[in-house]
């Protein structure tokens, strides 16, 4: 296997892009990543996307993007792993280059969501759950996470306001990111006053959906110095699965796929959680941040809320998370979010994060989770 580096990154603003389609967004992110690298060659394209069939009436979406971006006749495939699709697209690109099958490969995550009203999007997102045994019974994604959150609060005697620091941190960091969708800082009082979606989960526990695309160009590490910007090495890449339905697990509060993918990626990179300078985690709901921090070994079981309360997840903390706002603050174009996390981690390691810069960042972890912890993809990036 060859070492692989990220040599170019690009991202669109996350917003309600009324005048722009899925293809417009993907093409902008791709053009921006190629310009960033200063290299024209592309041998293959992997498109991370979850819902183009449901929300745009369009499958065969990798061909659509390759065509629109002027990349025909290269290999182009859609990669789908629910909300982890963006991370999965980079994993596919990584494997293609590491194996020697291709040299210059683009991974783009793209999602166009705001053409639909809330009930349509809620229905579409539930496609990541078990269709026969979760979605068909009216369990929305928010409901599944709310069930987890109530159980967590019961087992660990937590209060709803204990989850507020995650949203406050995400919005504080998003305010520093000109591409983020929710740039207004919030207070604990705002959090507690926020309307309920599926109790105990409220609007500010939840990452809002949006439209957006983010892209990364990768190549063999030995050729990465040709690029315009400093290369960022992919030192760990791993994917793990758990049962599709939350109820299929012995203990739903243990996110084993998240734990396994983090452990495998860290082992490949030869790093421990305490070596990691920042962690772009999948904060689709505040409870997901909590369970991810615990599964990945940044906090003992039942203690992630304490980590947040002590301010250790902030930009100056010992484990900064959601440094550009996370899914909550940047916005969550679901199949694109994993690609945004990787672009943001790369920018941190290049020292190009502007006011959101984590000082001295050298090792970053980005993790995308699909379904209710049913698939997790973790990457370790290093300079």
């Amino acid at each position, binding site marked *: 296997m060859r070492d692989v580096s990220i040599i170019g990154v690009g991202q669109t603003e996350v917003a309600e892009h009324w005048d722009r389609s899925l293809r417009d967004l993907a093409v902008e992110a791709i053009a921006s990543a190629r310009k960033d690298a200063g290299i024209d060659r592309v041998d293959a394209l992997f498109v991370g996307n979850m819902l183009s069939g449901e929300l745009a009436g369009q499958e065969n979406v990798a061909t659509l993007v390759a065509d629109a971006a002027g990349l025909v006749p290269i290999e182009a495939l859609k990669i789908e792993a629910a909300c982890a699709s963006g991370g999965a697209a980079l994993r596919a690109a990584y494997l293609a280059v590491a194996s020697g099958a291709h040299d210059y490969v683009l991974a783009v995550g793209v999602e166009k969501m705001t053409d639909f009203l*809330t*009930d*349509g999007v*809620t*229905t579409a997102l*539930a496609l990541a759950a078990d269709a*026969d*045994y*979760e*979605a*068909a*019974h*009216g*369990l*929305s994604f*928010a*409901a*599944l996470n*709310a*069930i*987890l959150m*109530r*159980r967590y609060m*019961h087992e660990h005697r937590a209060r709803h306001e204990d989850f507020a620091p995650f949203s406050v941190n995400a919005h504080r960091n998003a305010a520093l990111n000109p591409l983020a969708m929710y740039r207004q800082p919030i207070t604990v009082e705002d959090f507690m006053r926020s309307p*309920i*979606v*599926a*109790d*105990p*989960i409220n609007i500010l526990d939840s990452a809002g959906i949006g439209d957006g695309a983010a892209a990364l160009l990768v190549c063999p590490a030995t050729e990465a110095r040709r690029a315009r910007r400093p290369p960022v090495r992919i030192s760990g890449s791993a994917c793990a699965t758990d*049962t599709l*339905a*939350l*109820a*299929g*697990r012995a203990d*739903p509060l243990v996110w084993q796929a998240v734990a396994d993918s983090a452990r495998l990626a860290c082992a490949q990179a030869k790093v421990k959680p305490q070596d990691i300078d920042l962690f772009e985690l999948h904060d689709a709901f505040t409870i997901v941040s909590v369970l991810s921090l615990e599964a990945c070994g940044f906090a003992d079981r039942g203690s992630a809320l304490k980590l947040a309360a002590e301010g250790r997840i902030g930009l100056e903390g010992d484990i900064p998370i959601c440094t550009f706002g996370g899914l909550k603050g940047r916005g969550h174009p679901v199949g694109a979010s994993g690609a945004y996390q990787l672009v943001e981690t790369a920018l941190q390691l290049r020292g190009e994060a502007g006011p959101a810069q984590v000082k001295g960042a050298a090792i970053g972890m980005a993790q995308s989770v699909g379904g209710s912890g049913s698939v997790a993809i973790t990457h370790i990036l290093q300079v």
Partner: protein
Amino acid sequence: MELPRYHRLRGPYYRLEGNACPGCSRRFFPPRPVCSSCRTPGLEPFAFSGRAALYSWSRVLQPPRGFASMAPYTAGMVRLEEGPLVSAQLADVDGVDLAIDMPLEMVTRKIRDAEEHGYIVYGYKFRPLLRPARPPR
């Protein structure tokens, strides 16, 4: 939900039919093709009693399509007496103070709004266990 799919699900949906592993005797709902513990294929049918305890729940205020007329409704996860967890709606809980571990029983109810083609999908829900007013003689 389309008719053939609904037809395939009649055992689990109406009778809470799962299966059991002949290798390690673990029981599954819904039925699985292969035992997730010992990987034995060829599991045997097993009908659950329908008695359960409440694991956790949520009052859903933003319903997906097909559930608007029921909203707000309560979705929960329950632990069957025989072991497995099941996700389902809770029935007859208006005005009931729910508590984790409270006893529940399966009932058959309409699980979503009627679809365009008009047929109604029935399936399991769980309701607080009905207790006799005084112990039976």
